[in-house]
């Protein structure tokens, strides 16, 4: 398939997944921000949420002081934020349009419908401070549903060929990144280096994280005990049965990349990188992670995940002319 087509499919899924993630962390931050400080409300929820979204620097530059109204607007609607929910849906649709024929009708309709609905919300609430809590809840619900819709239609209707694999690959690389980020940011906020893990005040904070990744019930099923930070980390990092865990994402990433390598007859840099990361996740346990330092572990992971993204790009999605010339020179030699 065309590299550009694979690239569009890959980014289409990444943007849909990112929109979903943003909706979830806005929701979680809202819950946290209403907690009294005695229950773990820190007053910095919006700052850490912007940080988890990778949007804090941009926010400071474009908006300034952090407050709830502006943060919500910036994360959800602001055109100046290239990763706002609306921009994610806009980019997703632009990518989808460019590869219309590589999508199934259901996938296209799920994106186009979501985009039209997003435009409606944008027209109504596209200015800072115009959205009330009820409408915001509706909006966030809609975004999560749109992502589910897209995911489900892709899963149900796409041929299992390279187009499908590249599309899924984008989703899991993005999901691994966002899971690691939300864990890292919240962990830093909660646990300055001097403090002990496990104070009772952070109960609600951890619950909020679990809720943000739809894992609260899963936690209860897996551990059958009250929320413990290291178990939350265990669930979100190492548990293969938890669909948002880093381990589960890498199980999928490795499987997809192996499928691609098999179909194309040769593996490359992205396969070896993905296998390496998976091996680490398979062999390390949560105790070792905390000994090493969760923050360090997650930073390393996010870097490795970025490097994988770059490797996938270099190997499949973008061929610069020199690389192409080289390949050709080799084939002529």
């Amino acid at each position, binding site marked *: 398939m*065309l*590299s550009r087509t694979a690239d569009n499919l890959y980014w289409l899924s990444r943007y849909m997944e990112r929109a979903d993630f943003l909706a979830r962390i806005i929701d979680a931050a809202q819950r946290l921000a209403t907690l009294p400080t005695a229950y773990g409300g820190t007053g910095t929820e919006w700052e850490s949420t912007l940080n988890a979204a990778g949007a804090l620097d941009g926010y400071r530059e474009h908006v300034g002081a952090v407050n709830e109204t502006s943060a919500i607007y910036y994360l959800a609607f602001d055109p100046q934020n290239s990763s706002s929910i609306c921009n994610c849906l806009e980019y997703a649709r632009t990518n989808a349009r460019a590869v219309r024929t590589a999508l199934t009708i259901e996938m*296209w309709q799920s994106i*186009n419908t979501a985009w039209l609905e997003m435009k409606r919300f944008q027209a109504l609430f596209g200015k800072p401070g115009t959205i009330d809590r009820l409408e915001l809840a509706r909006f966030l619900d809609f975004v999560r549903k749109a992502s589910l819709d897209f995911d489900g239609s892709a899963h149900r209707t796409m041929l299992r060929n390279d187009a499908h694999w590249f599309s899924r690959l984008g989703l899991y690389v993005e999901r691994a990144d966002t899971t690691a980020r939300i864990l890292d940011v919240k962990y830093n906020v909660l646990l300055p280096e001097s403090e002990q893990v496990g104070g009772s005040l952070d109960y609600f904070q951890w619950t909020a994280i679990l809720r943000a990744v739809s894992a609260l019930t899963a936690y209860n099923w897996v551990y059958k005990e009250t929320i413990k930070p290291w178990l939350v980390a265990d669930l979100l990092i190492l548990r293969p049965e938890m669909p948002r865990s880093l381990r589960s994402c890498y199980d999928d990433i490795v499987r997809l990349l192996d499928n*691609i390598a098999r179909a194309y007859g040769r593996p490359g840099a992205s396969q070896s990188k993905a296998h390496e990361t998976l091996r680490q996740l398979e062999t390390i346990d949560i105790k070792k992670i905390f000994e090493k330092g969760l923050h360090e572990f997650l930073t390393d992971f996010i870097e490795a995940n970025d490097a994988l993204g770059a490797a996938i790009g270099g190997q*499949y999605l973008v061929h610069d002319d020199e690389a192409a*010339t080289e*390949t*050709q020179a080799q084939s002529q030699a």
Partner: protein
Amino acid sequence: MASARFFDEMTKPDGLPRDVYERVNQWLASAPPELLASRRSQAELMFRRIGITFAVYGDKDSTERLIPFDIIPRVLGRSEWTRLEAGLKQRVKVLNMFLADIYGKAEVIKAGIIPEDIVFNNEHFRPEMRGVKVPHDVYVHISGIDIVRVDDHDFYVLEDNARTPSGVSYMLENREVMMRLLPELFAQHRVAPVENYPDALLANLRSVAPSSSGSDPVCVLLTPGIFNSAYYEHSFLADKLGVELVEGRDLLVRDKIVYMRTTQGPKRVDVIYRRIDDDFLDPLAFRPDSALGVPGLMQAYLAGNVTLANAVGTGVADDKAVYTYMPDIIKFYLGEEPLLKNVPTWRCREPEALKYVLAHLPELVVKEVNGSGGYGMLVGPHATQAQIAEFATKLQNDPDGFIAQPTLNLSTCPASFESGIGGRHVDLRPFVLSGADGVRVIPGGLTRVALKEGSLVVNSSQGGGTKDTWVIDDVSGGSA
């Protein structure tokens, strides 16, 4: 040629329907207005759905920009079609011969059939193509010849489209919608199918692959990208053809060979069905500012390593000034009379003609030789005194730049409206394929209809719509 009243394709002057329209006429007479209304709204729904499915028009108004569709089919009898088809084949055959000649020995010019400057000074003439041999001498692989009728026997060519004609996706969609919308009416006729167009097109493209390519040549469709107004047609066709829809940035040229960038590395391309104008094909050969094209493409093409369909430089054949010479050009190459007529045209470059045109501006249509899409045009009967005066000056300053034609009394077909059935003016764009095995016409084409009462302008930007076009077996007991 112009009769006092318009030629009504359904109804004869005595009020009876022409044979080919008998069943349509019966259906219209018996169908209650509610049925027609419900079919109209169903059609609109279907098109919106198809539109959402694969037409992705410009941004905000994505659902508003559908071209209106009229549910009453435009019907041509088999014998009428056979005559038209023969004329189209003759015409396109000659377009190819003409292009091979002007980029070769230029005998048509030496013989004095057409003035040298009209050809060689034409902005669409590509000197790069001189002496270049294209596979099977086919230049115009895909053409759309615009046809109008003014009476029941003659077909007139309004325009030859030999560059990148569009509209074929409407021909295909219109048929799909009609078959679902009016199955009972459809079943009463034997309608020649059009659905094999993509197959025929693909076979045609493969037939002109360079001889260096293997038994399974790789074809692609080259689009300017998602912002082009015909993008949805490009993606629709690529999908039906089962070929990659590429943009310029997906292609690269090395050692005069064209490759597309795939996830498995560069893959050689043999045939490019390009929907990009010559000017934008290759920034190294033509417009250096073109970001749509492929640097080095022209070199690969001239080396015979890739086939472009249509060939480079075909624009000179559908030029309005060249058009006026087509009847003579046909006689020159084939020794035959043209089967399709040209609309009588005054070439303002000729002093006698200019004099006539200046004296009759209020009744003529004056067109810029290099204009298209209705721009730079004077429609005499609808023009103000000031506009006429302005055009008179333009004409005197640059007579070479203009031609003039009588205002045509285009034929009418019935169309369905809330207010009832009314005759509306139509034209027809059949699509003609030329390949190694000759010229082929898909029976039917795109009928465009001026939905505004009395309007002669069929362009979609000015209230034009489309109709499905049926070529049906002649009704027993008489032919049209």
